[in-house]
């Protein structure tokens, strides 16, 4: 039996508990400084950590105001879905234009002409798609054709959720199309053979890199050039090497202001400054340091540029008629990618 003293103790305990809960609930809302949320794709974690610090310092020096940039990373398609579902992004820096188009179309928070609002199709950096193989290249992988060889394991993420994966897919398609002189049936056969070799489709590019490098699955990783270099940097050049194919795609990961969100928050000015900052020489030098291709190479350290291989690149506009068309034809429900997966896994 409890005495009345014990009853009082229980009462006090309950009051204390309620106080803690209320305090905890309110403490997390009490934030004063300007905060921008940058919703980005998977491999830009290290890049934006440096860019955000540089911008915050620059903004402080110019205006005296403190700004905190928060980031969220994941597969590009998945991230776009989160922004559509209400993730309060001030800016989106995704892997490809189609994902930003989707946000614009569904939410109306971004104007349809967003891509013409910033220089270079709103892409402050570009990249391309290359291969990472295990040291010594034991399977002798030289070019795209080798990826369709029976018995080989190819690691690439899921084009449904990952932007990098869609670039990978289109790079392979473009290669096959160019090589066959424009024969779509041949490209389809090649992609089917390639995807038959894919044991696992991760949701994002980083997940695929970890699958290949840390879990040791697969003979070749099809990856962003920047992600490939980062893998070598993290795990050592004695474990992996990069194979540059004869032909690849010019990948343009674009950035955009989410007008609907910044106007609701009153952060339009600083968010615009943040995107403009990406084109400054200081930011372009950071971009090159992280193995991306700066749109203003003159601002980058020559040594950073020299590391990037020179290879022939085709563009999505030239070969596929732009992202809107490529997205609809290849990646929508029942599109070419779905048909290929069906054929690859009967």
């Amino acid at each position: 039996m409890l005495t009345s003293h014990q009853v009082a103790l229980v009462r006090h305990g309950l009051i204390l508990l309620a106080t803690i809960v209320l305090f905890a609930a309110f403490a997390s809302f009490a934030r004063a400084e300007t905060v921008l949320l940058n919703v980005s794709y998977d491999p830009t974690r290290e890049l934006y950590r440096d860019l955000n610090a540089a911008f915050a310092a620059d903004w402080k020096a110019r205006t005296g105001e403190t700004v905190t940039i928060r980031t969220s990373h994941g597969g590009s398609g998945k991230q776009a879905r989160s922004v559509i579902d209400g993730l309060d992004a001030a800016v989106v820096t995704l892997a490809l234009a189609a994902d930003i188009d989707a946000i614009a179309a569904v939410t109306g928070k971004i104007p349809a002409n967003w891509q013409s609002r910033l220089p270079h199709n709103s892409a402050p950096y570009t990249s391309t798609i290359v291969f990472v193989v295990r040291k010594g290249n034991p399977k002798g992988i030289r070019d795209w054709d080798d990826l369709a060889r029976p018995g080989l394991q190819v690691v690439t993420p899921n084009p449904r959720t990952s932007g990098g994966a869609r670039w990978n897919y289109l790079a392979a398609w473009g290669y096959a199309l160019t090589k066959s002189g424009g024969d779509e049936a041949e490209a389809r056969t090649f992609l089917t053979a390639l995807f038959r070799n894919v044991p696992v489709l991760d949701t994002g590019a980083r997940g695929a890199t970890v699958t290949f490098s840390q879990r040791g699955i697969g003979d070749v990783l099809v990856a962003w050039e920047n992600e490939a270099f980062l893998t070598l940097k993290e795990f050592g050049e004695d474990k992996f090497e990069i194979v540059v194919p004869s032909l690849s795609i010019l990948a343009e990961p674009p950035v955009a202001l989410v007008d609907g969100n910044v106007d609701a928050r009153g952060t339009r000015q600083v968010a615009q400054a943040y995107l403009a900052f990406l084109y400054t020489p200081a930011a372009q030098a950071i971009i090159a340091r992280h193995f991306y291709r700066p749109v203003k190479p003159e601002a980058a350290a020559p040594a950073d540029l020299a590391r990037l291989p020179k290879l022939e690149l085709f563009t999505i506009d030239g070969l596929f008629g732009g992202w809107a068309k490529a997205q609809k034809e290849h990646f929508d429900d029942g599109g070419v990618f779905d048909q290929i997966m069906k054929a690859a896994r009967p």
Partner: protein
Amino acid sequence: MSDTVLPAPAREGRGRRVTTEGAGARLALALAALSFLALFLVLPLVVVFVEAFKGGIGTYLSAFDDPDAQAAIRLTLTVAAIAVPLNLVFGVAAAWAIAKFAFAGKSLLVTLIDLPFSVSPVVSGLVYVLLFGAQGLFGPFLKAHGIEVIFALPGIVLATVFVTFPFVARELIPLMQEQGTADEEAALSLGASGLRTFLTVTLPNIRWGLFYGVLLCNARAMGEFGAVSVVSGHIRGLTNTMPLHVEILYNEYNFIAAFAVASLLALLALVTLAAKSVLEWRYGDALSGRGAH
């Protein structure tokens, strides 16, 4: 406990063999069970700590210097501090209603309480996105009133409450059913109020079961990944809980820090386990409903 301590009655047949298998068969069974446990439970747990301390204690501790890690720990504690008391109140209320009263739809309520156990956490997360997301059922209303649910603390708390719903109630229902209503009826007939009856009669009877339920509920609330991952939005330093932070660190090749944060979660599991063992050893009778009252 104010009761006189009685000597434990000698149990008949203790240690007497009730099976007919030989010593060899019993040994083989025990060995199989133990090696299974070692392989699938103990070894992974050991690996977490080995990996976490790979770079020495300094590197281990420096993992917690990261403001994002601290924010993740703070968020996890905040979420548990809200979700666990909510489910404590709900669990006691539900168990009280089910065990002490007869009403129509009782079995339906019991089934509903178990629902979070049978639904995949990812689905529970997605349901909240479909309800409270910008394109969801209540999305326009919430937006019009400036209320953030998904990709913010309320959404994470909701998902956690959903997933940890059954723990306290499930622990209490059999216990309270076993204890019956005689004690409460006696208290009420002596003129005690409903609240006083609950505080002085029911609560002392169920306190260890309740404590155990809260422990389990807390462990799950802090460790939940799937449902929280769907509603979090993964904003660093803001909506990443400890399990989500572990995934991020791992994906950034920061393996030691990932395992260091994971070791905190593992430690939580070990403390829960130890507390459970102590409870069962010390208050086994009260837990199983054969209490002195």
